[in-house]
């Protein structure tokens, strides 16, 4: 039964960060599982699950990453994932895509996600973009979420309508298109 760990790392972007982090894992004999890595403006961030057939003392892992952390100004953190945490990561219901866009104003993300939380909608992925033009700043939110079994997409769309009107946003709710490859 493999042991699973979650690594998070962030810092100023530069070429070779992914290679440096994954080289440490390779040398430790670990396997990369799921990961999400992205650059926001000049900052690079990694969220990565890896596994190992043998347990590590967390201090050993911290030590292994210390050097590349210091060299690249990366903040690295590793934690052990429990079996229930790993099982939880598997999606249990089809995902729903919620798109919202309109003029940027304070509190958009908070108000929308707070409304979703009240409906027990579990947000699993958030991407936001701020876009400035001559007309002002626009904000685009793209969320993926799991809906509770009792809530249909049509009902959620209807319940979000008054909030969307108040915020001056276009909000749509639809199934996530999955592609079989």
């Amino acid at each position, binding site marked *: 039964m493999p042991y699973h760990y979650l690594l998070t790392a962030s810092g100023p972007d530069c070429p070779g960060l992914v290679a440096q982090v994954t080289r440490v894992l390779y040398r430790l004999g670990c396997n990369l599982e799921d990961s999400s890595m992205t650059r926001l403006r000049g900052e690079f961030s990694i969220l990565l699950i890896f596994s190992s057939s043998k347990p590590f003392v967390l201090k050993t892992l911290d030590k292994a990453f210390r050097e590349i952390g210091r060299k690249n100004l990366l903040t690295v953190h590793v934690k052990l994932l429990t079996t229930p945490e790993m099982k939880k990561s598997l999606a249990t219901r089809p995902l729903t*895509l919620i*798109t919202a866009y309109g003029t940027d104003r304070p509190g958009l993300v908070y108000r929308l996600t707070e409304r979703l939380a009240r409906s027990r909608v579990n947000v699993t992925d958030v991407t936001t973009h701020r876009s400035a033009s001559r007309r002002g700043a626009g904000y*685009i939110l793209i969320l993926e979420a799991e809906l509770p079994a009792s809530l249909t997409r049509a009902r959620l769309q209807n319940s979000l309508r008054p909030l969307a009107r108040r915020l001056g946003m*276009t909000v749509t709710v639809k199934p996530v298109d999955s592609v079989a490859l």
Partner: protein
Amino acid sequence: MPIRPIRQFPDPILKKNCQPVVALTLEVSRALNDLVDTLNASPGVGLSLPQIGFLWQGLAVDVSRRKKGGAGHGRIVLLNPRVVSSEGEQVFREGCLSIPDFLADVKRARRVRVEGMDVSGLPVRWDVEDFEAVVFQHEIDHLSGILFLDRVSNAKTDVFRRKKP
């Protein structure tokens, strides 16, 4: 004829429904001339009247302006356009002159038949396919306040920030 500024997100005009053109007045003709001039001065292959500030149902498409777009039917200016039939599907990575920062993979029909009125007021029908069909569907969406962001169906695979030149 003036080249008009292209309205950009979050300009509220982009979310409005456009009115059908009932008479080819001087105002409408001028707006259409401006539409073509603005399209020609832009890097795009299609433009709709609301994107230059007019709430009438009108668009201009010219896929021959894009190297890889093929000749298509050349420049088409169409009023009150509507898709009367469609078949097949295709996914194309679209951008929009009104949302310059983003690209998105959008699923649309591969072939569409579009009917409308030409600049002399005569009814016309166009059968378009592939890239030209994408451009028509994209521009016709603008006339109902629909942006390509409304057509995104997967957060992880569909939306991309356009690379800065």
